[in-house]
């Protein structure tokens, strides 16, 4: 099963066999639509943009389907295309990645804030200070480069290496962006958390 044998095989395919291969590819690729949509939604923050990005991803994927090597990671291959489509879209809207803030808090500053310095307390009570809206809003506030890493690894379940391939950066860059992105997500969560927990209406 060498690459060479594979490409020779492809050259020798008849048109109808190739159409068959393409249809199989399309079906397999469409199996990843939900995962791509969720990543697109978390990158763009808009359901309409997310759907447009998914459509664009599939159009590009089907134009380039011969360059996909069967047996390799199709989800990551599609996510790479999605990410490029997203960058093109972001460029059109001329969104600029925000600058990096300082990164000197303790790992536990969100915990410390939510627990109000009290040592004991059930986890559920702490987590209930973070509403779904606060979490979604907080993720949107994480600057683009860092949010991409968080979305791919923490939400999309891609490994460091897969995220590095998708983003076309070294793995160390992914780890550093992920670290900063998580910190910034926590900072945003701290600012959106329900204050104190006594009176949720004050949020």
């Amino acid at each position: 099963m060498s690459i060479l044998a594979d490409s020779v095989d492809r050259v020798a395919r008849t048109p109808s066999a190739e159409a068959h291969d393409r249809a199989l590819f399309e079906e397999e690729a469409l199996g990843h639509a939900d995962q791509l949509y969720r990543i697109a939604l978390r990158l763009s923050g808009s359901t309409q943009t997310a759907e447009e990005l998914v459509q664009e991803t599939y159009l590009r994927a089907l134009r380039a389907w011969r360059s996909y090597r069967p047996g390799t990671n199709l989800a990551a291959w599609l996510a790479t295309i999605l990410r490029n489509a997203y960058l093109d879209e972001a460029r059109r809207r001329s969104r600029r990645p925000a600058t990096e803030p300082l990164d000197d808090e303790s790992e536990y500053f969100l915990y410390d804030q939510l627990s109000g310095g009290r040592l004991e307390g059930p986890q559920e009570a702490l987590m209930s200070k973070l509403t779904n809206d606060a979490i979604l809003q907080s993720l949107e506030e994480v600057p683009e480069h860092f949010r991409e890493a968080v979305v791919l690894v923490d939400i999309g379940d891609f490994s460091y290496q897969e995220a590095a391939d998708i983003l076309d950066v070294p793995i160390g860059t992914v780890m550093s962006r992920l670290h900063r992105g998580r910190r910034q997500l926590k900072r945003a969560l701290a600012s959106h958390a329900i204050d104190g927990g006594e009176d949720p209406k004050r949020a």
Partner: protein
Amino acid sequence: MIAEPCKGVEHRLQAYLDRALTPEEVSLIEVHLGECQYCRQRYHFEAQLRTTVKTVCCGDPVPGDLVDRVRLAIRQSA
């Protein structure tokens, strides 16, 4: 005053949750978590936070006809 082992756990906690540590580092952390309530509470919080963020961020309904509309777009562009 935070003890040195606790600092070490704080520093490696995210990598631990990422399963990106060596078996030796994992075992040092797990031994410490077993004996230190301060770190254990924070570890549980960080782990739960990840799960919660993921659950909430994957919770949006995917449009039921998404795949149909993608197929349509593919046919129209052909």
